[in-house]
């Protein structure tokens, strides 16, 4: 095995956050930092189309950001979740709690 460099990339443009790669406990602090404070204004879109793997560490970051958005009358939308993200959200029973959009 080789030393794992960061396998997650987060980019922010206005109120849009795009995450690529794997979201686990190692990358979670970077994702939390990108979403706290919430970027931009109004609706925040977190595009997860390029996420190949996510565990409950990613849910932790998303739920925290979702709560910050609700507390400030904003809305956090998880956009284009990859199949891995969709499955984790379903397993965790969060499909009706988080705002999810299949549109880019």
């Amino acid at each position: 095995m080789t030393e794992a460099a960061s396998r997650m990339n987060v980019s922010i443009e206005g109120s849009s956050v795009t995450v690529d790669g794997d979201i686990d406990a190692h990358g979670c602090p970077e994702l939390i930092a990108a979403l706290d404070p919430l970027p931009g204004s109004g609706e925040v879109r977190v595009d997860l189309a390029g996420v190949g793997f996510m565990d409950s560490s990613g849910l932790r970051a998303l739920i925290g950001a979702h709560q910050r958005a609700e507390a400030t009358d904003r809305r956090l939308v998880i956009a284009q979740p990859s199949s891995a993200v969709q499955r984790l959200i379903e397993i965790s029973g969060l499909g009706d709690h988080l705002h999810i959009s299949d549109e880019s």
Partner: protein
Amino acid sequence: MDQSSGTSAGEHRITVASDTSVIASLREAVSGFAHAAGADESIVSDLELAVSELATNVVQHARSPEITVVVRHEPDRWVLDVSDAPDTNALDAAALPEPDALSGRGLFIVQAVMDDVEIVDDCGHRFVRCSRLVS
């Protein structure tokens, strides 16, 4: 970061320092072994998710400075051992937390994707053993 690893008789064992930076490599090691042994994608993704959650638990909650992962291929199942383990009653409490809870989903997710999850205490060496049946 690799302290030791080895493969023998349908089993792959990896011991690494307990740190979040190794979790991706543990997933890679488990998926690589499972792929090479012919596991299909759904099994590989379930094993990856389980080892990621369990290794995260070790890093965040266990006192051990190391994580040991053993993945084993048996005729009707895949077995994943991750040590050390939380308290022996931890699985009893692995209910799905409220949607607003930030943490506490790891063991629930492992139980959702694996067919059997137990905490084994082998003369004081405690580990989580989970099995995924080959359907």
